[in-house]
């Protein structure tokens, strides 16, 4: 049986990859993909702790992940709509050129 630490390390790795992508990519869509990866890493933690916890019959981890998937779907829809609106306005999705609010 795989120990809990293996799942937690996989989750931490996915979170770090998503964070690196969100911080370094120029394209706004790739930044959103990085945020989705980080959300999924958090979901994996919930499932792993549910499975290895004292009371798996309480189903708390499972239900939290189901609600989290719902919120993430709403976030993805609104985020991509915002990116399309930004593209219509600036004719680019390059975040380095969308800087009109820079002081």
């Amino acid at each position, binding site marked *: 049986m795989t120990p809990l630490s293996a799942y937690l390390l996989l989750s*931490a790795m996915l979170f770090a990859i998503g964070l690196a992508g969100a911080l370094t990519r120029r394209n706004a869509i790739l930044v959103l993909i990085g945020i989705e990866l980080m959300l999924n890493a958090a979901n994996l933690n919930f499932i792993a702790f549910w499975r290895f916890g004292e009371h798996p019959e309480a189903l708390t981890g499972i239900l939290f992940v189901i609600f989290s998937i719902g919120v993430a779907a709403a976030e993805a829809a609104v985020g991509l709509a915002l990116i399309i*609106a930004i593209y219509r306005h600036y004719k680019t999705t390059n975040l380095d050129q969308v800087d009109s609010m820079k002081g």
Partner: protein
Amino acid sequence: MSLPFAIIAVLTIAAAVAAMTLRNLVHCALALALTFAGLASIYLQLGAQFVGFAQILVYVGAVAILIVFAIMLTRSSEPTEQPVFSASWLWGLLVAVIVFGTLAWTIVKSTASQREPVQVAEATVKQIGDALMTGFVLPLEVIALLLTAALIGAVIIAMRDEVETKKSK
């Protein structure tokens, strides 16, 4: 560590790295779908069948397709001369490495990370449905309201510019 977990984990991490580093955005979206599928198989391996299939339906089915549509609508898949990473990429990478180092150090040091599951846990769809309709009915309704509001909001945000240009004409 069991062999199936190792294979899925390596595949998932490789797909995630590909999703974050490839030049062509359509390839990134496909690698992202592979990452989501790998996570779904890990959920299935952990005994969370419903979440695994919900992951495939929502992420591989809907979110990945939505991202492909956004890439096509914004013409991001066309090749660009500019570098794909921003000028401060070194700092972003450094922050991510520090975060991973801290998390990994805490996980390895923790006493809880070596524990084995107490019993065979099964979350059947019936149990989840019962819980959703009894103790968690209020969060369920809030999620339903949130999804409705988010979808209406997304449509309004995405169509706003077109209405304004029609008015100005």
